[in-house]
């Protein structure tokens, strides 16, 4: 019995050990499953499924959408034929066979082969598996975000990380709207709200193309091109190149991902004169008929040896309109003598400079507008001509709404509407007036100055289009290099602000070219012609009335065939028989002026077709 006692004691000892181990393991389960459930790993995962809401353009076209894609992984112990598996996968996934083989042989348990593959490829893998191939390879559902339009509007839309949380753009700022965390019910899929942007994909496409072409043609560092509804501040397109593809954002560097229109601060140069001179008009410091005697140089006696403010030529005596048309620095400097530093500062502040517009995108810069206490004796005229201040492109475009809204500044908006998953409109953006900045008459006056700036002799003449009056102001600024804290001699920023039609603007277009290194650096050269191209698209697209268009659309005319583009090579082509619509774009030519008489189709052409283009300075076309 003593012997049995020892056996029993040892059995019970083991039983007790097992029982203690069992209690320990149960406690571990209780901790993870009941008491400590909010642990870190749970956070990034899916006890609840949330389908992130779509992002749409203003016409309902999809900019971002949730997808259920599959990720290919391998469970190594089940991979019986690594060589064959690697070659099959390489073929299906269009991947490197060696890389896959390395993955399969370099791991002992679990390894990812490729994430979020296309549905076609998942199908091919499944088909292969039905044939008994690809053993050990598995497809895991992996919810992702797809941006069907790639780069279009990428800076506004932003992107999401691998765990589907917004990292930039509206994906970031509207994260909780797109993917609500409230009301999650376990086991049920929760659908996020949809976001309808103010962006119009067609316009975006055009401005993107123009911006990209400009970037290449001018060999510039960056190009921004914004189009905004002048009546309500809705942003119609937001082009900024270099840009990136949010589908694979990690392949792009920080410069490409940088949302320049709100994050790049620069000195605007002469475009800014519209805001400073409007402020002077508004305070009564100057008035419409004021004359300014200039001799190309402005240096009050008190400045002594400080470098003067100069014009590129001596424009002589001018009125205020002429000062604006010529963009005379000296003229503006004289004009600024009538306004106090405080008044100028407060006036510019009211335009919104020095503070973020609050458009609803992350990382927006405030810009720099120093208070007069920090100004030097030279600052007042310098600020008036758009230096010693920092702006963002969006600030300039937004400030321009003042001119198109009888002096009232509007807040720019990027989200038009938030729609619940069941189609209910939760929130609708409205025209938001920030404050009254100018009297309606000053706003009209400035528009008129900008209008005549596009006429012969004005700096904005390259924006002009026949049949419509466009208000515009160009600018060229030296780039202030933050590293050396001085102006760069080689780096310039050329820009053009335009709105049309000038008497009651419907659209504001603003273009900035950073560091153009082509033939020109001037805003009127690098940006203005592109703004005109944008206008040529926008005017018919938005249904803005333009003289001459009506004829073409008149019912008694024959059906309009899609007019082919007129291309000009070394010789003057034959325009005869072409519809007016086709030759309108000839007006975009910088070198040759085209006079069009009448309407209908081209009947006669002077000079004759075939004349070498070098000899042609002017083309006269008679239409019938």
């Amino acid at each position, binding site marked *: 019995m003593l012997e049995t006692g020892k056996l029993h004691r040892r059995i019970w000892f083991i039983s007790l050990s097992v029982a203690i181990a069992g209690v320990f393991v149960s406690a571990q389960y209780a901790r993870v499953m009941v008491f400590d459930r909010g642990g870190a790993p749970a956070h990034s995962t899916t006890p609840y499924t949330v389908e992130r809401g779509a992002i749409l353009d203003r016409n309902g076209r999809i900019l971002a959408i949730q997808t259920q894609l599959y990720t290919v992984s391998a469970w190594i112990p089940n991979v019986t034929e690594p060589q064959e598996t690697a070659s099959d996968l390489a073929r299906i996934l269009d991947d490197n066979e060696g890389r896959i083989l390395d993955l399969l042989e370099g*791991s002992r348990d679990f390894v990812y082969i490729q994430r979020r593959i296309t549905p076609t490829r998942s199908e091919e893998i499944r088909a292969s598996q039905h044939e008994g191939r690809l053993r050990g390879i598995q497809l895991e559902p992996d919810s992702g975000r797809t941006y069907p339009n790639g780069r279009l509007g990428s800076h506004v839309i932003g992107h999401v990380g691998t765990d589907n949380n917004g990292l930039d753009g509206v994906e970031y700022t509207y994260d909780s709207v797109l993917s609500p965390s409230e009301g999650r019910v376990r086991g049920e899929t929760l659908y996020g709200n949809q976001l309808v942007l103010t962006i119009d994909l067609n316009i975006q496409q055009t401005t993107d193309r123009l911006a990209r072409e400009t970037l290449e043609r001018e060999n510039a560092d960056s190009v921004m091109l914004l189009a905004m509804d002048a009546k309500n501040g809705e942003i119609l397109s937001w082009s900024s190149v270099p840009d990136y593809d949010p589908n694979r954002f990690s392949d792009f560097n920080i410069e490409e991902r940088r949302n320049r229109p709100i994050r790049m601060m620069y000195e605007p140069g002469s475009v800014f004169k519209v805001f400073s001179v409007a402020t002077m008009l508004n305070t009564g410091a100057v008035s419409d008929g004021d004359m300014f005697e200039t001799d190309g140089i402005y240096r009050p006696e008190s400045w002594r040896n400080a470098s003067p403010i100069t014009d590129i030529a001596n424009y002589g005596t001018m009125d205020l309109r002429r000062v604006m048309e010529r963009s005379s620095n000296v003229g503006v400097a004289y004009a600024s003598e009538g306004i106090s530093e405080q008044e100028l500062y407060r006036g510019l502040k009211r335009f919104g400079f020095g503070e973020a517009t609050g458009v609803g995108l992350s990382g927006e810069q405030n810009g720099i507008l120093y208070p007069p206490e920090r100004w030097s004796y030279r600052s007042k005229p310098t600020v008036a001509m758009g230096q010693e201040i920092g702006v963002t492109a969006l600030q300039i475009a937004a400030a321009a709404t003042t001119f198109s809204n009888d002096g009232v500044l509007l807040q720019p908006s990027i989200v038009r509407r938030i729609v619940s998953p069941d189609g209910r409109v939760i929130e609708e953006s409205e025209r938001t007036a920030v404050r009254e900045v100018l009297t309606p008459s000053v706003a009209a006056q400035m528009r008129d100055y900008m209008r005549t700036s596009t006429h012969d002799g004005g700096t904005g003449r390259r924006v002009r289009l026949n049949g419509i009056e466009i208000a515009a102001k160009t600018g060229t600024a030296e780039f202030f290099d933050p590293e050396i804290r001085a102006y760069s001699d080689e780096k310039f920023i050329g820009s053009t602000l335009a709105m049309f039609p000038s008497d009651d603007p419907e659209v504001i277009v603003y273009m900035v070219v950073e560091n153009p290194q082509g033939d020109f650096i001037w805003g009127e050269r690098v940006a203005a012609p592109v703004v005109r191209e944008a206008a040529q698209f926008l005017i018919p697209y938005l249904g803005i009335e333009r003289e001459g268009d009506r004829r073409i659309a008149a019912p008694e005319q024959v059906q309009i065939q899609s007019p082919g583009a007129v291309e000009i090579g070394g010789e003057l082509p034959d325009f005869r028989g072409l519809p007016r619509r086709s030759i309108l774009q000839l007006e975009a030519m910088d070198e040759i002026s085209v006079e069009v008489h009448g309407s209908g189709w081209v009947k006669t052409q002077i000079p004759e077709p075939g004349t070498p283009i070098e000899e042609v300075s002017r083309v006269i076309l008679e239409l019938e």
Partner: protein
Amino acid sequence: MSHSFSAERVEVDRGYDRILLTAMMLLLGVGLAVLFSSSFFRSELLFADPFRFLTGQLLWVVVGCVVAALVSTISLERVQRFIPHALGISLVLMILTFVPGIGTSIHGARRWIFLFGRSFQPSELVKVVLVFYLAYLLARKHEIMDDPVNALLPPFLVLALFSTLIYLQNDFSTSVFVMLLGLVMFFVAGAPIRYFLGLLMTVGPLGLILLLSREHRVNRLLAYIEPAFDPAGSGYQILAAERALIAGGLWGQGIGMGTQKFGRLPEVHSDFIFAVVAEELGFVGVLAVIGLFAVFAWRGFVIAANAGDRFRSYLAFGLTTLILGQALLNIAVVGGAVPATGLPLPFFSSGGSAMLMTLIACGLLMNVSRHNPDGAGEYG
């Protein structure tokens, strides 16, 4: 009083241990249900037949139950005579896994032999045969437990041989498990404590070297210490299992409702099947399954303690520990309490050999519970 087995001993048929039988049936039923729930998606994906894994497993269950019923009635004394043969056959099968053409290597692990169109994992057989052998030998050598060379060394060498063969199949965890199981049987059989201490000091360092000699083991260990260290690799299963646990909560998602099995948790139907139990049945279900294993342990150890002779006692103890030890380790791994091992969960994990041997072990336990020689003092 004779110290050898007595032929004229009066055996009393006490009938099957009903509590143990009920616990086993419940474990088997729940196991199959969870297996189906965890595998239908993968099965559908791979074979366009959601029942593929289940029907495969059911076949083994049927075969296993028939064999279990048989072994529960046979005379254990008669079986004793075949122990050397069984041991020899096991050895041959183990060696066969290294023979090209018969043994199947699945990415570095040579654990399977392929005979008659079915793969079989001899190490599963080895577990049961070793328990049988050790129970038999230790009971016989009971008298000379103080003579280590004659009583302990031979069975220890056999144990070490099989453990080494399993290690060479690149199945470290099973190898260690078998070694520990054997040692626990030595302990229960009354081997002096000092030998265990001596063994610990010599074999401990060796085990550590073997453990760290393969990269995937080190990775598993690292993954245990810090799962987020390599979330796409070794830590993945641990993190995925933890997600399943968290998703399960107190009451679970309901059977068939879990989502982690949809490809997120690799090998969910085998070594990590308990994660599905956790996700779908919740902590309540986890406790219930652990409770069933506890009942199993309770009855198993009671049967061992009250068995008619030392051989039966050791056998019952060894078999109970075999099933329980694997269950405990597997559940602990899924719960993140110990590093990942390759041990299946008896009654739950898919795998024909394991299921068959588990059921045979159950049959043997039943046998011991039923046949109990009358009277005390038969220990001998």
